[in-house]
């Protein structure tokens, strides 16, 4: 644990990063003023935020704010934080990432205030769809984390999710049991995981090729079965139904976030549980320490008596199972039915979320929320009459991932032995 976290922390407080971050905060603040504040000409324009999701009983009243004033305050806050970051010795130090999160949130809020100036926007509804869209992305990212922390690159998340989605729909429709559907999705995805594991661990195949093969295979198989069976007999084979939402007493009556977080179906709760489990598992258990050491320095791990191959097999298997849950979410967690290629590249956004979240469970959940947000706001832009084409918002996950990967805003650090097949010495 020591070596990696040390390096990560050292990187967080490097001087270059300090001023790059500071400048970024200032730029974001200036952008709020330049693009948003100045475009509001009419004095007294108000923005109304809806605070209750559709169907829920209102716990807090909707909020109406003066648009221009709000924008200017947000801009000033961002610029102020930026200046502190630059001027103060070491800036915000290890809290920089939290400040970055806060600035990003303020920028988003400013964007919404501006977009809905003179109109209203349902903040609760937006938060709700953001979470729902983040669920499969984060599950996919968790799958990637499990695989890659042990040193096996998994670009087959897309294929595994697609397989999980199809199998879940098919099995749940045939057996009339959503739980069996979920189980089958996990098993099917695990089977792909076994293939990926055997190819990349035993046969030492290039892991990207192996992942690509699995992706192509899954697209082919799911579309084939869909065209041959599911589409022909929709009623019996492709109508699985959806897990019903379960309201958690007490928690669900928390104002604003209660109905959003605690009145969801079991797959969403599974995500919350997995987040905590994997975080604790990775950083506070012997299993996690071993797994990470295998991903960082397999030879050293081997010398200490850790079975590198077994550790990697288990990680890939667990990872693919998590991807299977993510896949099941598409069919039995949200829309009740499989469409050909319905994951539509979300497996690859998961990959982006994993990188953006720096191979950390909660980091990638944050990234998943960000990407989910850009996805859910994109569909509302037209309604609000904003001139920005929604396609550009949909590009943001990919662009920010490239920026993060290039190390412009703090570098994300992949496990050192990621993607390198392990060979025993003399074996």
């Amino acid at each position, binding site marked *: 644990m020591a070596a990696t976290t040390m390096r990560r922390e050292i990187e967080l407080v490097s001087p270059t990063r300090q001023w790059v971050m500071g400048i970024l905060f200032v730029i974001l603040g200036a952008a709020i003023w330049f693009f948003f504040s100045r475009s509001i000409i009419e004095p007294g324009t108000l923005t109304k935020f809806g605070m209750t999701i559709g169907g829920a009983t209102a716990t807090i009243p909707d909020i109406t704010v003066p648009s221009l004033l709000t924008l200017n305050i947000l801009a000033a806050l961002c610029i102020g934080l930026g200046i502190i970051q630059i001027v103060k010795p070491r800036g915000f130090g290890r809290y920089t990432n939290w400040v970055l999160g806060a600035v990003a949130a303020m920028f988003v809020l400013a964007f919404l205030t501006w977009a809905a100036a003179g109109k209203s926007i349902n903040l609760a509804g937006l938060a709700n769809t953001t979470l729902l869209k983040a669920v499969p992305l984060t599950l996919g990212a968790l799958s990637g984390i499990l695989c890659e922390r042990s040193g096996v*690159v998994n*670009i087959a998340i897309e294929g595994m999710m697609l397989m999980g989605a199809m199998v879940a729909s098919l099995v749940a429709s045939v057996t009339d049991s959503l739980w069996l559907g979920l189980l089958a999705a996990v098993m099917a995805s695990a*089977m792909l995981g076994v*293939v990926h594991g055997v*190819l990349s661990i035993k*046969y030492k*195949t*290039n*892991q*990207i*090729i*192996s992942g*690509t*093969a*699995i*992706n*192509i*295979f899954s*697209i*082919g*198989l799911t*579309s*084939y*079965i869909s*065209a*041959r*069976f599911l589409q022909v007999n929709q009623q019996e084979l492709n109508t699985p139904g959806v897990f019903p939402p379960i309201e958690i007493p007490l928690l669900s009556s928390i104002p604003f976030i209660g109905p959003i977080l605690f009145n969801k179906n079991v797959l969403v709760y599974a995500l919350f549980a997995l987040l905590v489990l994997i975080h604790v598992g990775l950083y506070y258990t012997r299993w996690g320490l071993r797994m990470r050491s295998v991903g960082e320095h397999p030879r050293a791990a081997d010398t200490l008596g850790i079975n590198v191959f077994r550790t990697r097999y288990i990680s890939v298997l667990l990872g693919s199972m998590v991807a299977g849950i993510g896949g099941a979410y598409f069919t039995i967690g949200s829309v009740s039915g499989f469409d050909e290629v319905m994951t539509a*590249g979300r497996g*690859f*956004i998961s*990959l*982006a979320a994993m*990188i953006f979240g720096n191979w950390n469970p909660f980091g990638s959940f944050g990234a998943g929320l960000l990407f989910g947000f850009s996805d859910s706001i994109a569909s509302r832009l037209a309604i609000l009459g904003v001139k920005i*084409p929604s*396609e*550009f918002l*949909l*590009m943001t996950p*990919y*662009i920010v*991932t*490239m920026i993060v*990967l*290039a*190390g412009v805003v703090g570098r994300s650090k*992949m*496990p*050192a*032995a*990621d*993607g*390198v*097949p392990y060979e025993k010495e003399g074996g």
Partner: protein
Amino acid sequence: MSDEKPQSEEKPQEKDAAQIFIEEVIAGPAGGQSRGRRILSSLAVPVLAIFTGLLLGGVFIILTSPQFYEALQVSVVQGIKTAWEILVVSYGALFIGAFGSPSEILAALTSGDTAALREALYPFFESLVAATPYIFGGLSVALGFRVGLFNIGAEGQLFMGAIFATYVGYSITGLPMFIHMPLAFLAGALGGALWGFIPGFLKARTGAHEVINTIMMNYIAFRLSDWLLNGPMQRPESFNPVSPNIMDSAKLYRFFQDPIRFHLGFFIALLMAWLVYWLLWKTKWGFSLRMVGLNPRAARYAGVSVAMGIILGMTLAGGLAGMAGTNEVLGVNYYMAQAFSSGYGFDSIAIALLGNSHPAGVILSALLFGALRNGATNMQLAAGIPIDIINILQAMILVFIAAPAIIRTIYRLREPAEGEEEGLVTSWGGD
């Protein structure tokens, strides 16, 4: 995977024949093989991979056919008979769809009716048309592999190429064909090259891995084309996301009358294959590029700029993939539609690997995949087998190529001597 189990019962008969054939080919002393022997033995794994892929695909088709189970309930013999019939009908339709029906071609030849002959030869030429973008795409990925880069972004580069070519194709008017067509083609190559340059540059300057960046660039290209085709580049008075038609002067020349769509692009693709071969194996530049791919550290000591090699490699690879999209617009569709490519980018990876990242190999495997893809359309119409079977075949072939040990185990082939097999790409984290 349980679907594939019964195949083990069928295999023994198959294995014997193949085994004898392979032993014929491989037999003899390991050292001092003749050039012909070497080529043959290097063909063994790809050929067997294709064969095994088709075999497993056949098993899969049988296992997903309801008729098979119905017949099986009657008797086992009936089941086997039906299985054989399904196989013959499906793969027969695949063959006829890919090459045309021999009897029709013969009849057309004897009758001397040119229209009928064109109709009869149409499938064959259509396979060539389908193979053309595969050659470009396969070359793109193969070139990347040779420079030690994994260009998983051929799809996005293809989109950018198509966008650029389409724009030049319809917006510029009044040019003669011999200027407009090459101009549009080069614009397309440029669009792809730009999309390859960015991840190449990022890798060279910051070490950001090209696999992730090219994946991201793919989706940026998709969204960009979505926006363009729904906005600035949308055909006037159209509600569909399609571009205007390109000018006649920008179209690639078609050699025959309708329905045959065989066009100049095929020969441009062959030319490009030769150019890639020439560049990589006959020039100093190409030598240093391959050195970057084989051993970047050694290249650095030898005074080769690894960064330049990476940037150049990705740019050229992008340009080639851009040509694939250009070819589709200027030679086949004459306009660009949303999501017009059916995964050529990912297929290209399979093609490059099957062709051992060599231009000649790429041409051969592109022809194979073109024929398969084209034949599968007919298989869907005639035998009701969804076209997606092609992806399944492709994935299996890819696995067998990528893990030759599997094929060697199945067919008991000799292990290659140390150093005989070239490594393809440097790994994810390693440099």
